[in-house]
Every structure is written in structure tokens, then in C-alpha cells.
């Protein structure tokens, strides 16, 4: 707790630099990466991140300087080269894009590792820290580094803001952008450039190996929550920023913990939560919907069974036993109990240990379900020319999903039939 307050009060200047840096790098990378995600270029982002390594190594070998501006220029050049190579290979050879991405990624990364090894063994005094480009070097960020990264982050956000609507069209339907007379080539160049730039700065905090996560994961998480591009960008930016905050906090409290991997871990956590719990698109809401459907089906089936007993005049005083219901229709024992619970909660039945009685409200509901079943059977024989002995299983499902509007249409189309194909009466209102 003490540490958290200390961290949040920004009293430690080093922690301050690291935190602000990772937050803004994370935010801008996430927002730029959203477009790579929507253009289905997630893997290209990964390849470019790896391909940046030889650029950094070479620019250090040539200048012997570790200034962020110089290293980033080298990174930009090799990132760009990699992107052009990927596009060129896919266009001019029979190789598919995934193959050319894989090729470029491994070749560039291999060269990068070779050069780094060479630098480390060459004994130059100030090479320390270059290898941190592999997994990020957020913790050793200086104030000068921070200024450079903030400038880049501001530039990226500005470009996104200016070209927001054009990038939207470019991601959705690039050919339409072209026929509208928009300068598509230049727009693509700008979008690709800010992607490479975002990657080149992003590797400062998470390193080349984990960079794709910083670019793509926030977008994937944000997409689960919204159907609006603008909201998606904001959410992705927030996720990127939050992960930067968490990552630098953890490495502040536990100095042996690397910042980059923790940033990626917290991002993955956010993505996992989003994929599981987001309304509509989430996995859990989907499961809940399925369980609700199941409950609806078994309770409506129980209502039908009660109605059938009543129809066959097996009920004298309104009460039936569970055994009688079980003989009319097979229920798994837990299903029966669940259905009884749901129905009595809605006042469709009154239960008394072993005995069950339909209420007036329950009877109306039961009639509705039986009516839908028989109407649908009618429709299947009349309109789809199915034989009477083939229709029951289908109607067992469809009866649960027919809406009042469709019911009305069914009745009208079939001309108010009185009995179903099995000659059972169709119950419209009170008998």
C-alpha cells in the first residue's frame, strides 16, 4: 500500500519517467495498431517489430551512439524495408503473404541477432543495453529518451486525428477510397509509416519479441466491447495506457521484474477478460444465453406435459403427481426439478411435494406452447409437404422460438386451422 502511494505520487523521478513513457508509448501503439488489426495485418506488425533489430544494431555500429533519435532512424529504415519486402514478395512471386511474412521476419531477426552478438563481443565500451531491445528497456529510460518518445506519441496521435476518416475508409474498403479520388498511395504510405514508427518506439518498452502484443492485443480486447471505431480506438488506447501503468508499477515494486513482459501480461489479462465477459461478443454471455434457452425449453416442455394430461382427462381435481408427468414425457430428474422451480416462481403452477397443479396463468401459457407446436406441424405438412409422421421432432424445437408476430402470420396463412395434422385440436383461447 505504502508502495502504491509512493508510486502514484510520482516522487521517484526515475519511476516517473518510466511510467509516463510506457503509458504514452502503450497508448499510441494501441491506437495505431487498431488499424493494423482492422486491416487484418496483425502478423505484418510482428514481422516489422522483429525486422527492426538489424536497423538498431547497424545504426549503433555506424555511429557508436545510443541516442534514441539515431537508433529510431535505423529502426524506421529497416522496418520500412521489411514491409516493402513482404509486399514485394507476395506480389511478385507465388508465395502467399503468410510465407513472405515468415521469411522476412526470420531473416531480418536472424541478421539482427548476429549483429548484436558481434557488437557485444567487439568490446566497445558503451554497447551495454543494446541487447535490451529484445525484451524492452523501459526501466532504463532516461529523461532525454522520454522527450523523444513523447514527441513521437504526440505525432502519431495527431496523424490519426487528422486522417481518421480516410484511415477508416482505407481499412473498410480501400478500393472505394481509390475510386473516390483519394490519394490512396500516399494515405497508405502515411499509415504504414506511423505503424513502423509506433513499433520503433514500442520496442523501447516491451522489446521486439513482444511488440506485436502491444500493437494488436489492445485492439482485439477493445473490439469485443464496441461496434464503433471511434470508441474502439479510445478503449484500445486506454488498455495500452493501463498496461503501461501496471507494468511500470510492478517493476517499481519488484526491481528484478522486467517491465516489458509485465506490460504484455497485463494486456493479455485485459484481453482475456474482454473475450470472456464482454456483453454480446463475450463467451460467458453466450453461455448464459444457451443456459436460458435450455431452461425455457424444459419448462415449456413441462407445461406441455401438464396440458396433455389435462387434455386426456387424466386430471380430475386439477392435481397430478410427478410420476404421472414422468409417464407422459421423459424428463431427467434434475430437469424436472429445475422446470418445476422455474414454473412455480412464475406462478404458472402450484406445487405441493409430489403434486402439481396448473394455475389459470399457467394454463394460458401451456395452451400457447401447444398451439405453436400444432400450428407449426400444420405449416410443415401444408407448406413444406412433409408427411404427418415426420413433423413432430422439428416442431419440438421450433415451438420454443416462434414470436407472437410469426404466430399471427402462421394463423393467417393457414386460415385458422382447427386441428393439427394428427387431428388434435389447436387451442386458441379458453375452451
Amino acid at each position, binding site marked *: 500500500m505504502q508502495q502504491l502511494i509512493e508510486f502514484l505520487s510520482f516522487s521517484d523521478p526515475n519511476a516517473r519517467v518510466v511510467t509516463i513513457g510506457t503509458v504514452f508509448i502503450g497508448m499510441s501503439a494501441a491506437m495505431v495498431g487498431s488499424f493494423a488489426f482492422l486491416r487484418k495485418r496483425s502478423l505484418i506488425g510482428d514481422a516489422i517489430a522483429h525486422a527492426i533489430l538489424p536497423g538498431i544494431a547497424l545504426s549503433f555500429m555506424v555511429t557508436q551512439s545510443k541516442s534514441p533519435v539515431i537508433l529510431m532512424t535505423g529502426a524506421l529504415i529497416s522496418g520500412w524495408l521489411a514491409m516493402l519486402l513482404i509486399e514485394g514478395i507476395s506480389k511478385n512471386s507465388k508465395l502467399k503473404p503468410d510465407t513472405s511474412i515468415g521469411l522476412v521476419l526470420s531473416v531480418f531477426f536472424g541478421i539482427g541477432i548476429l549483429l548484436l552478438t558481434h557488437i557485444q563481443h567487439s568490446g566497445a565500451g558503451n554497447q551495454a543495453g543494446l541487447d535490451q531491445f529484445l525484451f524492452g528497456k523501459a526501466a532504463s529510460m532516461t529523461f532525454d529518451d522520454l522527450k523523444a518518445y513523447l514527441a513521437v506519441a504526440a505525432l502519431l496521435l495527431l496523424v490519426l486525428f487528422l486522417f481518421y476518416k480516410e484511415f477508416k475508409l482505407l481499412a473498410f*474498403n480501400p478500393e472505394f477510397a481509390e475510386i473516390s479520388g483519394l490519394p490512396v498511395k500516399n494515405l497508405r504510405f502515411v499509415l504504414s509509416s506511423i505503424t513502423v514508427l509506433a513499433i520503433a518506439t514500442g520496442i523501447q518498452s516491451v522489446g521486439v519479441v513482444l511488440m506485436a502484443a502491444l500493437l494488436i492485443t489492445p485492439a482485439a480486447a477493445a473490439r469485443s466491447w464496441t461496434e464503433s471505431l471511434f470508441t474502439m480506438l479510445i478503449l484500445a488506447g486506454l488498455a495500452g495506457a493501463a498496461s503501461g501503468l501496471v507494468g511500470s508499477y510492478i517493476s517499481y515494486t519488484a526491481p528484478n521484474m522486467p517491465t516489458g513482459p509485465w506490460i504484455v501480461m497485463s494486456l493479455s489479462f485485459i484481453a482475456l477478460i474482454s473475450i470472456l465477459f464482454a456483453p454480446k461478443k463475450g463467451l460467458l454471455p453466450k453461455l448464459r444465453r444457451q443456459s436460458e434457452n435450455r431452461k425455457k425449453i424444459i419448462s415449456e416442455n413441462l407445461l406441455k406435459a401438464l396440458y396433455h394430461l389435462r387434455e386426456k382427462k387424466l386430471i380430475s381435481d386439477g392435481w397430478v403427481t410427478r410420476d404421472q408427468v414422468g409417464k407422459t414425457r421423459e424428463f431427467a430428474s434434475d430437469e424436472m426439478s429445475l422446470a418445476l422451480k422455474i414454473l412455480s416462481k412464475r406462478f404458472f403452477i402450484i406445487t405441493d411435494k409430489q403434486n402439481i397443479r396448473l394455475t389459470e396463468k399457467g394454463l394460458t401459457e401451456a395452451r400457447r406452447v401447444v398451439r405453436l407446436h400444432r400450428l407449426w406441424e400444420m405449416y410443415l405438412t401444408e407448406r413444406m409437404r412433409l408427411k404427418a409422421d415426420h413433423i413432430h421432432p422439428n416442431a419440438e424445437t421450433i415451438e420454443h422460438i416462434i414470436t407472437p408476430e410469426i404466430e399471427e402470420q402462421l394463423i393467417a396463412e393457414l386460415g385458422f386451422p382447427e386441428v393439427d395434422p394428427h387431428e388434435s385440436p389447436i387451442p386458441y383461447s379458453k375452451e
Partner: protein
Amino acid sequence: MWQGRENEQIMEMNTEQELPALEVHNLTASYNRKPVLWDVDFKLPAGQLIGIVGPNGSGKTTLLRNIMGLMKPDSGYVNLFGKKLDDVREQVSYVPQRETVDWDFPANVMEVVEMGRYRKSNLFRRISTKDKNIAKQALERVNMLEHANRQISQLSGGQQQRVFIARSLAQQADLYLMDEPFVGVDAATEESILNLLSEMKNEGKTVVIVHHDLQTAYEYFDHIVLLNTRLVASGPKDEVFTSNLLQEAYGGRLTVLSRIGDLLAKEQFPVREKEFKEKEGPGDAAAH
């Protein structure tokens, strides 16, 4: 030299009649060296509903892509209202097949129709109220205004098609090119599109529609271009809809033509006019 040819054309046309809305001149286009269109050459009158009709794989979409500059022809050229595409961009609009985009994109109907108002002139800027109103009117014309705020991922096929047409209407062009707008749409959409087409014709617009269904082509269009890799016929529908010509378009490929096409692809042989000329280059120089 191209310029000269173009001027000649314009003079010719001016003396004869008004400019054709679209002129396709000796167009040859290929994918990976295999020609999909061979020396296709026709002119289309303005203010009519025109169908480009042919069997599957006959090069209809390729023709549209060449007209819209999305693909470079190997040889030949396209003129729109007597000019190059770049000079008349804003007079021409295009409705691609709806499967060409991912409808799971995070956007609503209105946003997509507003894309019809994106221009070079409003780069950097937000869309204006005037542009928004134009988009709304376009949506109204395809009976989709009530769905303006709906997510595009929730649209039916027919609704997707109408959104694409509305986006194109929002461009307020004079010539519209539509790629198979009737494929996979419901009856309501088909009717809505047909009504719209006759309205557009009354407003003097030219609409060119790629269509593969012979049954309905005669009913929908005034002028028909029959295509099957090469041009079979182009003219008023009554002249084109003869059993001979239809048989020619739908009766299968010309075997020699497709064998030569296969050979060109196999040998990676250039069909570009320019490349031929480059090869003739030294010979020409010697002659002079």
C-alpha cells in the same frame, strides 16, 4: 500520341452526336499474363440503363475494374464523357460486389454512406452538415433511413446492397457502375433497386450494371453489352437479344482463344502493346 488520338475522337463525336458516357477502346486485360478481356471495344450512350451481360468468368468484373482504374489494362484505354478518368472522377461512381468487404467492421450504416462524401477536397476535415444531409437523402432513396444507426454487421444481404448503393448515390455522379447488385438480395431490395434505377434514368443518369442473369436482363435494361472474354455484341436490347448472339455469348468459350490465353500464361508471354513496341524499337530506328 495518346492525346492526339483522344482529340481526334472528341472531334469525331462532336460532329456526329453527343459524347458517349463511356468508351472502351481495344481493351485487353489479363491476370498473370492470361487475358481475361481481348480487344474489347464499344461505346455506351448517356442516360440509359445498360447491362453488361455474360456467363460466369466472362470478364465482366474485370471490365468494371479497368473502367474504374482499379486495374491497368495491357493495352487500350477507357474514356468517360470523352475524358480520362482522372478528369471526371467525381462524375463517376462505383458499387462493388458486397462480398468484397468485411461487414464485421465496426461502423454503422450512416458512417458507411457518409464515405460516399469523402473527397480529396475534404481531406483532414470532418464531414460537413451538408454532406451528412446528402448521405441521409441517399439512404432515404433506398428505403434504409430508418436503419441509419444500425451496425453494418447486423444487416441482411439485401440491406448491405442497399447501403452500398446509397453510398454510391451520395457521390452524386452522372455515371454509375454497379457490380451484380441483384445477386443474393430479397424481393424487397430487388424492387427497391429497380424503382431507383428508373428514377435515376429519368434524372438523366447513366447506369451500367454487371449482370449474369439472362432471364431478367432483357426486362431490366435498355442497352446490352454481351461479353464473353471478347465483345459479342453491344447495342439496344432488341438488336442484341437474338438467339445467334446469345448462343455465341453463352455457348462456351472460343477454343482457339482460350488455348492461346493458356499458352500466354504458361509462357509468361507479354501481351502489352508497349512491350511489343519496345522490342520493335531498334528495328524502327534502323528504318529511319
